[in-house]
C-alpha cells in the first residue's frame, strides 16, 4: 500500500484513493465529427507502461478531488502529483 500526496490534503494512505486510468486523455470536443476509428482511439486505447506512467487518481474518501500522479509502475514510486489542468512536470 503506497502513500499518495493529495495536492489538496497532503499525504494519505492509498486506500483513501481510487485510480482513474491514464491521464491527459481529453474528451473530444466534437465527437460527432470523428470517425469510428478516431472515436475508438479515444474510447478504448490506453497505455499500460512498465515504468513511469501518468495517471489520474481521485481522493474518494477525502476531498473527492481528481488530480494527476506520475508513478513508476514497476516499483510504485510516485515521482510527482499535480492538479487537474496543470502541465505535467517535464522531469
Amino acid at each position, binding site marked *: *500500500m*503506497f502513500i499518495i500526496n493529495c495536492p489538496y490534503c497532503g499525504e494519505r494512505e492509498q486506500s483513501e484513493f*481510487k485510480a482513474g486510468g491514464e491521464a491527459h486523455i481529453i*474528451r473530444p470536443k466534437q465527437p*460527432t465529427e470523428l470517425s469510428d476509428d478516431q472515436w475508438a482511439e479515444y*474510447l478504448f486505447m490506453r497505455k499500460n507502461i512498465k515504468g513511469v506512467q501518468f495517471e*489520474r487518481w481521485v481522493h474518494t474518501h477525502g476531498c*473527492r478531488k*481528481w488530480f494527476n500522479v506520475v508513478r513508476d509502475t514497476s516499483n510504485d514510486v510516485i515521482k510527482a502529483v499535480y492538479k487537474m*489542468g496543470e502541465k505535467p512536470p517535464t522531469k
Partner: protein
Amino acid sequence: MTKNLRVKTSKFIDETYKVSFKFNGTTYYGYKGDTLASALLANDIHLVGRSFKYHRPRGIMTAGSEEPNAIVQLHNNTSRTEPNVRATEIEIYEGLEASSQNCWPSVNFDIGGINNFLSPVLPAGFYYKTFMWPASFWEKYEYFIRKSAGLGKSPTVPDPDIYEHKYIHCDVLVVGAGISGIIAAKTAAKNGFKTLLLDEKSYLGGSTIYQNSENFKISNQISSSWLEKEINEIKKIENLEIKTRTSVAAFHGYNFLLARENLTDHLPLDQRKNKTRHRLLKIRAKKVIMATGSLERPLIFDNNDRPGILLSSAIEKYANLFGVACGERNVLFTNNDSAYETAISLFQKGINIEAIVDNREEIDSKLIKETEKNNIKVYKGYTVVDTTGYKRINKISIMQLSKDGQKVMGSKVSITCDCLGISGGWTPAVHLFTQSGGKLKFRDEDQVFIPDKYPSDQISIGSCNGDFTLNEILSSIPNKLKDFLNIKKTDYENLEVYSSFNKSKRNIWLLPSDKLIGKTKPFVDYQNDATAKDIKLALREGFRSIEHVKRYTTTGMGTDQGKLGNMHALGIISETAGSKMGELGTTTFRPPYTPLTFGTIVGRNVGEYFDIFRKTPIHDWHVKNKAKFENVGQWKRAWYYPKDGEDMHEAVQRESKAARDSAGILDASTLGKIDIQGTDASEFLNRVYTNAWSKLAIGKCRYGLMLNEDGMVYDDGVTTRLDENHYIMTTTTGGAATVLGKLEDYLQTEWPELDVYLTSVTDHYATVSVCGPNSKKIVSQVIPDLDFSDENFPHMSFKNAKIGKIKCRVMRISFTGEHSYEINVQANYGKSVWEKCIEAGKEFNITPYGTETMHLLRAEKGFIIVGQDTDATMTPIDLQMDWIVSKKKYDFIGKRSLYRSDTIKEDRKQLVGLLTENPDDVLEEGAQIVADMNKSPVEMLGHVTSSYYSPNLKKSIALGVVRGGKNMMGQKLIIPMENKQINVTVADPVFLDKENKRLNA
C-alpha cells in the same frame, strides 16, 4: 521408560513451575518457558510427525519458526483446534493438547508409510503426470490423495477467540531483537526517534543471549552478560516500544508492514477469556531497520531426514536456553565452525559428544583446538554418506571426501549415535527484505545472498546482511546507524570484541555418496518431501526456470516456504545446469513470512461486522412487521412482508394485487439522491442524460437515462427541477455512489468551466412511496394543506409541502404505473411520516410491499431495472427506449458510441417481452432462449432477465434479451430447461395499461 534429558538449570526455564501437557494422548511434563519441542525433547521424544508424500517418520529439526517437520494439530476436535502449529514455536501451557498430523492411524504406525517403499514410482511431478488424465478420474484420485495427504484438519465450528487490528505509526521500526536489533533500537530511541522493536520470540536477545562461552566477549564480558545489560537499559527508554511474540508477516512498499502480535497463545486456556488472542499490527514506519538474523543451513546427504537429526544450532539452543539434551550420543556434522560452538556448549553442560564430522580438511581455528582439547574426535575432510534408524537415528556412515568434493573415497566408518547435529553454514533471513522489493546480490566467497538495493528507507544489519561474526556485526553497525539515522555518534564505537569464530567454510550443495543418486534420498525440502534427485529429474526433463522447478518438484511450497532448503535447491540447479548461482536468481518469498490464522486476517470483521450494512430510517418498522430483507448494495431493503405463514410467492402475489386494487406503500429511502445546484445545472444534465433538460419547467420531474461513454446504459432515475438552478437527481440504490463519482469526474476533469455543485443527500431524506388508485385519498389526509387535484398537481410534478411542522417534498411520480406519490422528509421524520400514511391508509387496506413486489409491478409495465435487465452491454436502442435519446442535442455522454459500427448492428441483443404458451409456466431468470433445438450446436439467442407470475394479469410475464428480438414480435421461441422445453412468444415488453390510464386513475 521415558527418560529425562533435562541437563542443567537454565535461567529461561522456571523449574518451580511444572506444566503438564498431552501429546498424542499421553500426559507429559515440562516447565514454564519450554516450547512444545523442548518439552518433548526433554522427554526423549523426537518422532512427531510423518512427511507429506512418503509418510516418513520425522522429528524436530530446528528450534524456531523455520521448522519444516515438527508441525502439530492443537486441541483436536474442539473449537480452538488449529493445524500446522510449529512445535518449536508454541510455548507450553497447562492443558495444552497436541497431536501429530499427516499420519493414520498413529504416528508410530502409519499406513501411508507404504509410500516410502513405493517412492521409486513417486518421482517429481508424479501427481501432475498421473492424475491429470483422464480428467473424469480426477474425482476418484482426489478422494484418495486428500485422505492420505493433507496437513492437519480445519476447525468445523466458529472461532471462539477475539482478534483485532491496530495501526501503528513510528519513526523507526526495528525487526528482530537479537544483538543487532537491540543495538539499533537503543541507538534510534536514544536519539529521539519514536521506535518500535519487534521479535517473534518470547524473549529478547536472539541467539547471543544464551551464548555462555568465554570464546565470545564484548568489552571483556561474556557476550550474553553484555547484551543482558543492554536489554535492561532499553526497557527503560520511554520512546521505545518493545513487542515480543510478534512476527512480521509482510513488508510492503512505502515501509508498510504487517505483523502478528500473539497475546494469549502461551497462557493456560482458563486465563484467555475475553482477551484478544492475536492482533494484526499495520505498521507505517518512516525508517525500517531489518535485523532478522540468519537461518542455519542443513546439509544434503542420503537419509538426512531421520528423527534425531537436527540443525546444530538448534541442539545448542535446546541445551543452553532450555537445558535440554537432544540425545545422549551426539554427533555433529559440519562444513564450518558453528558446530564447534555447539560442541563446546554441550561439553560445558556435560552432554556426551561422540564425534564431529567436518567437510573441511585443513582447518585452523581456536574453536576446533578447544574442542579437540576436550578429547572429542574430529573427522576432517569427511562426509556422512548414510544414516540408519527408522523412527530415530541410530547410526551414521561416513567416508572421506575427494579433493574436489565430488566423490567419496576410502572405507566406510560407522558411528553409533542417537542424535546428529548438522550445520551447513548460514543463510541471511532476507525474506522480508525481498518482499519489500529489495534486490539481492550473491556473495561467492561464502555462497550467500545478501541485500544489495533498498527500495525504501530501510537498512539490513547484522547477520541478515551477511555479517555473521560478532566482530563483523559490532564493527559495522555503528557507522551504518550513523549514516542511516543521520546522527553523530553511537554508544558502540570501538568496542573491544573477542571471538574465536573462523569464517572458513567448505560449501558442497549436494554431498557425494557411494551410491547412485537414484538409490538415495537426500531431502532438500523436508516438508514437501522433495529430494535432490527430484530436482535433477526436473532439470533432465527440461525445466530451467527456478520458478518452474519449484512448482514441478514442490520445493519450497510448504507452510515453511522452504526456509531451510531453498538455497540448496538453487545450488543443485546451478551445478547441474552449469549456470552461476548469482545469475539464476531466487524464488520469490511471499507473505506471510510465517503462517497467519484467519482470525488475525479478519480481525473484528466477523458476524454482523463482516460487511457493514445500511438501514433506512424506517428499518425498525419493517423489522417489527416481520419483513424479510434483501441486500441491495450495502442496504438492507424490505423484500416482502409475509403474513400468516405465507411464503415469498404468496406474499408477493397479495402485495402486488393490493397495490393495484387499492393502495401500496414502499420504503424508497435507499434510492440515491444527488442535490445539483449552480447556474449551469441544466446544461450539465443535458450533457449527462440522453434526453433534453433545458426546457423542464420548475416544479416538474423527468425520467433520465445515463450512459457510459461507450453508449451502454449506466443508470436511470427521476430528476426534479426544484428551482431555476436547483435539481434533485435520483439514482438506482446500488448506483448512488458510482453515479456521484462519475458526475464529479466529468465536472472536474472535462467540464471545469461549468458552474455546478453536487452533494450526495441520500442519507438526508427518507422517501415514502404511496401508490394505487386510493393513494391520492391517503396522502391528502396526511398532507391536508396541499391541493392534490390533477390540475394543480399533475403526474411528473413536484410540490413543497408541510406535514404539521415538518417540511416535505412531494413528487407525483410512478415506478409501478399506478397513480403514485413520493413523500421526501428529513430522514429522522421518516418513520413517523410512514406511520401516518399507514394510519391514513387503514381504511383502504394500505399494504406495505417490498422490493420483490416493486420488481413485479414495474415488470408488468415493462420498466427496466438497470443491472437486472441491462448488463453494461445494452444501449437505449437495444432496450427499445429510442424515445429517450435526443436527436437534437449535439452531444451527451455516450452519444457518439450509439452509432459505432457495432452498436448499430440489427442483430444485437434487444429487450423484449416473453409470454409463455402455458400462462402458469413461470420462466427462470437467467434461462437461455433459443429458436431451433435441432441445430447443432444449439444457437443461444439470449436469456431471460426478469420473470414473474402477474396476479393482476393472471399469467406469467417475462422480460428477456434476444438477438434481433426487436423484429421478432409474435415469433415463437423456446426456453430449454432441464426436464422440459417451455414455448414462449415474443411480445411487447409493456404488459399492462399500455395507454398509461392508471397514472391518472
